[in-house]
């Protein structure tokens, strides 16, 4: 057991410090708020289930720095999102556009609601007739 203390785990991380703006807020609160809102809707490609705002992964911190640097430089959140989508596909965004692939997500609830209304109507009608 004591030996375990001397074993160093193999970290899959670099030894460099985080990128300049990874964990440092922008001076302008309005810009920082814009950056934060965007970061919460961008997927961390290493951890996949987390947004880059939530993740400790180095790549997520580099992406946060990229977002803040570009917001600071005057780009809009939509421009940055488009830049990332051009590289990683819609997968990078937690705000997917309406497309043939995502259509069922939007349409199924409406179809189910209509089906429910139809079923309810049929059963109410029967009760009324009795």
């Amino acid at each position, binding site marked *: 057991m004591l030996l375990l203390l001397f074993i160093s785990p*193999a*970290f*899959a*991380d*670099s*030894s*460099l410090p985080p*990128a*300049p703006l990874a964990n440092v807020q922008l001076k302008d609160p309005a810009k920082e708020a814009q950056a934060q809102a965007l970061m919460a809707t961008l997927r961390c*490609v*290493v951890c*996949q289930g987390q947004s880059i705002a939530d993740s400790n992964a*180095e*790549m997520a911190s*580099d*992406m946060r*720095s*990229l977002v803040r640097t570009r917001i600071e430089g005057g780009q809009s959140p939509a421009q940055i999102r488009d830049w*990332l*989508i*051009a*590289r*990683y*596909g819609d*997968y990078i965004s937690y705000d997917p556009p309406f497309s043939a692939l995502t259509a069922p997500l939007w349409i199924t609830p409406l179809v189910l609601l209509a089906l429910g209304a139809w079923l309810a109507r049929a059963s109410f009608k029967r009760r009324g007739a009795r």
Partner: protein
Amino acid sequence: MSARLIWIPFVVALALLGLIAWGLYKPADRTVRSALVGQTLPAFDLPPIVPTKPGLATARFATGKPRLLNVFASWCIPCVAEAPQLLRLKQAGVVIDAVAIRDTPAAIRDFLARNGDPYAAIGDDQTSSLQLALGSSGVPETFVIDGRGRIVQQHVGDIREDEVPGLIALVRGLK
């Protein structure tokens, strides 16, 4: 309700169970692929990380000679496993340029001394900027670039032994 309709929930539940079983036994491919395959390399200019080799700029990639762009790091363990395959590719005449992600000159020198040096150039990328610009999601990754600077293929993860001949053939077939 007719007797036949009563079976519908059962059939739906069975189909759902089947779907779940299928997902369990054949999980979806979670590899994040670059959307830039088939397009021209984005513009970049990275300084060299070791004094003996040039850095990495877009200009290197539109010179008429196809080459590989290897995304690696000294702290990445699969990159060590990949090193012998890169050396074999170099022996076969494939030019390999590289970008070192979040690395230091000392660590890179050590890595090259230990695992061999297949690289013609190594760019220094302290903040993963080129990696993000390429749509790459980890180390190691290898992009096959044709002589006009177009991304032909992205290889995610370390190159295995049995993939080397295919890559050599691919690069030789490019213009």
